[in-house]
């Protein structure tokens, strides 16, 4: 027992002796996805360093909580997450093992980016896993809409100003600059997509409701029979029939899904498979939040143009 007491005393002494480390000059920001990373960089400029954990070409639901990520989170002043249970399978162990009081949920250094954005597909009524991998708090792929990008950036601005009040004016100025560039680009994107309003398309996963709603496309089905459930032959046949019936020609696939089923469906209906970037870095052209939309809108409009001839 004496040795146990010694162990305990030493541990407690070690804890008591340590003081809180001094606040860093630049904010160390860790974001779960590259999109949040890009927005944090836009707002934070050279007053922050940004590290994103998941890559844009990686399925954000299934990320390994690697110890190298624990190191990143342990050093962070600010952790920004998508929320809505997108990272439920991998972020909690990273936070728990980070030993970083600043970024625990509820602390000042933790920002759930979904707090003020527009969320779609919030399920109502009884939810069971028979529905597949359904997100009870709504569809977490909400960043794929410019207005939500603006709202996330504003939340990041406020949070960064709170953590680093000396740079408040700097963050505000960076935000309004980003807001202006985003608004200009957004007008361009909306104009480019306008002729194709109502075009019927199919997507692999339910990653695009915000994007499709914003740009006026009509998603008539999914390659996955249910969220997170791989394609089944019956569902594929039904989807082919439905695409033929309504004349849908385009199948949008995220870069982390197998193309085989999508391609065979496309060949059946005489359509096209498009690998769109669901996140910054999803394709190499999507280098930041604006370029992400630039790439996706260009690819969609050029494809629609080819198909419709207008």
């Amino acid at each position, binding site marked *: *027992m*004496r*040795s*146990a007491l010694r*162990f*305990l005393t030493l*541990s407690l002494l*070690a*804890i008591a002796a*340590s003081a*809180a480390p001094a606040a860093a000059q630049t904010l160390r920001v860790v974001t779960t996805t590259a999109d949040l990373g890009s927005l944090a960089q836009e707002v934070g400029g050279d007053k922050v360093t940004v590290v994103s954990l998941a*890559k844009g*070409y*990686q*399925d954000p639901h*299934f*990320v*390994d*909580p*690697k*110890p*190298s990520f*624990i*190191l990143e989170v*342990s*050093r962070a002043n600010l952790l920004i997450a998508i929320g809505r249970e997108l990272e*439920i*399978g*991998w972020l*909690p*162990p990273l936070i*728990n*093992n980070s*030993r970083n*009081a600043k970024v*625990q949920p*509820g*602390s000042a250094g933790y920002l759930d980016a979904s*707090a*003020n*954005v*527009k*969320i779609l597909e*919030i*399920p*109502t009524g009884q*939810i069971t*896993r028979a529905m597949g*991998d359904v997100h*009870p*708090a*709504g569809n977490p792929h909400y960043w794929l809409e410019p*207005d939500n990008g603006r*709202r996330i950036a504003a939340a990041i601005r406020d949070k960064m100003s709170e953590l680093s009040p000396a740079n408040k004016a700097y963050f505000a100025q960076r935000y309004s600059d980003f807001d202006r560039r985003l608004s200009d680009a957004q007008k361009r994107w909306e104009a480019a997509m306008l002729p194709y309003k109502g075009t019927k398309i199919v997507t692999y996963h339910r990653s695009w409701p915000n994007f499709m709603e914003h740009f006026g496309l009509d998603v008539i089905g999914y390659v996955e029979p249910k969220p*997170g*459930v*791989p394609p089944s032959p019956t569902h594929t046949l039904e989807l082919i029939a439905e695409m033929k019936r309504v004349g849908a020609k385009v199948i949008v696939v995220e870069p*982390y*899904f*197998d193309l085989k089923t999508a391609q065979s469906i496309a060949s059946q209906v005489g359509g096209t498979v498009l690998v769109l970037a669901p996140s910054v870095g999803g394709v190499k052209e999507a280098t930041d939040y604006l370029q992400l939309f630039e790439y996706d809108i260009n690819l969609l409009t050029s494809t629609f143009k080819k198909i419709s001839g207008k």
Partner: protein
Amino acid sequence: MRFPIARSLGLIFALGLVAEPALAQQPPADAAALRAEVTSLRQQLDALEARLAALEGAPAAAPAAPAAAPPVAAAPVVTGASGTADTSKVFNPDTSILANFAGVAGKNPMSDQPSLELTEVEAAFQAVVDPYARADFFLSANPEGLEVEEGFITFTSLPRNLLLKVGKMRAQFGKVNTLHTHVMPTVDRPLVTENLVGGEEGLSDSGISLSKLLPNPILFVEATGEVFRGHSNVFESSSRSELNYVGRLRAYRDITEGSNIDIGTSFATGPTSLASGLSKQLMGVDATFRYRPLRRAIYKRFQARTELIWSRQALQTGPRQKAFGYYGLGEYQFARRWYIGGRYDQSGRLLDESQKDRGGSVFLTYWPSEFSQIRGQYRRTNYDEGTKANEFLFQFNFAIGAHGAHVF
């Protein structure tokens, strides 16, 4: 959390609506100040309105639109849509139930595993305790009865990169010892675990665990020191002064974005049940290589792991018995729902270093979803006595409740 916020927002919002006309009726004592206040109130209203709209999934309202009835009426809808219909449940812990059903066919005189058995039903309750800690409970109901498999508090907000756990827990000795049954890649545990490290239950005990990150530019390094009561399948203490100590040093490094190496060394020492004052030491080295290409992370992965364990047991008469055992395991995911793997086993026996068992397994796992898996395993074991066993094992693992997240 979201739910009470939504409700209080609705309330604040309603109050705001009442407040606005009331303000307008006040005498114009200081018109400028009043106007400023009204403007500020309106801004607050707009912000709240936008927030409400966001919460209920409707487009954020236009900034200038004065709030009419709909947002107030919408407040209950928000609470309903958030999925939690009752505020009393907000602080309930995440709850999940995990079941393991195992079966075996074939002859093995050294094993008493029944042909079919619901070997374990595990109830997990996990939640944040307060701003400084979280708690995890795993209650295990098995044919022997109901027991606390693990139950501990974790202090997550300690300075100096420290993490403190207090309670009953699986010791940080090697890899297999830290794993619950449902995250094992095989139906069984390796021979070396059965012979030297306490089998299924393993080294799991009441105690205190303190671990520290040792940040450096090259590697992830974590050092763990633990002290236990000395009452487990591995150690048995007969007095308060006899305790079980465990130490572990783990290093990890990414090789590429999709591959990494994880190496650890562990040590355990403590009393044994043979007689008071007799001690036992365990030493372990483990290495894991993982490969998972990020673009195809849901379809393909490979993992290779080995653990080497040495034991030293003092006897009442005769020299100390030194035993050694190891396993090597490889597992490959070849389709979204399919895994195949193999394991080679070899292990001495704790009390007689002249005895040695060998074995090998191949296994195939089918994952219908993240919440269930079905596994078959062919196992061949050559026991030191000359007994050979050929067995077919199978397992159904399934879980309901909260979505779990596993430690890497």
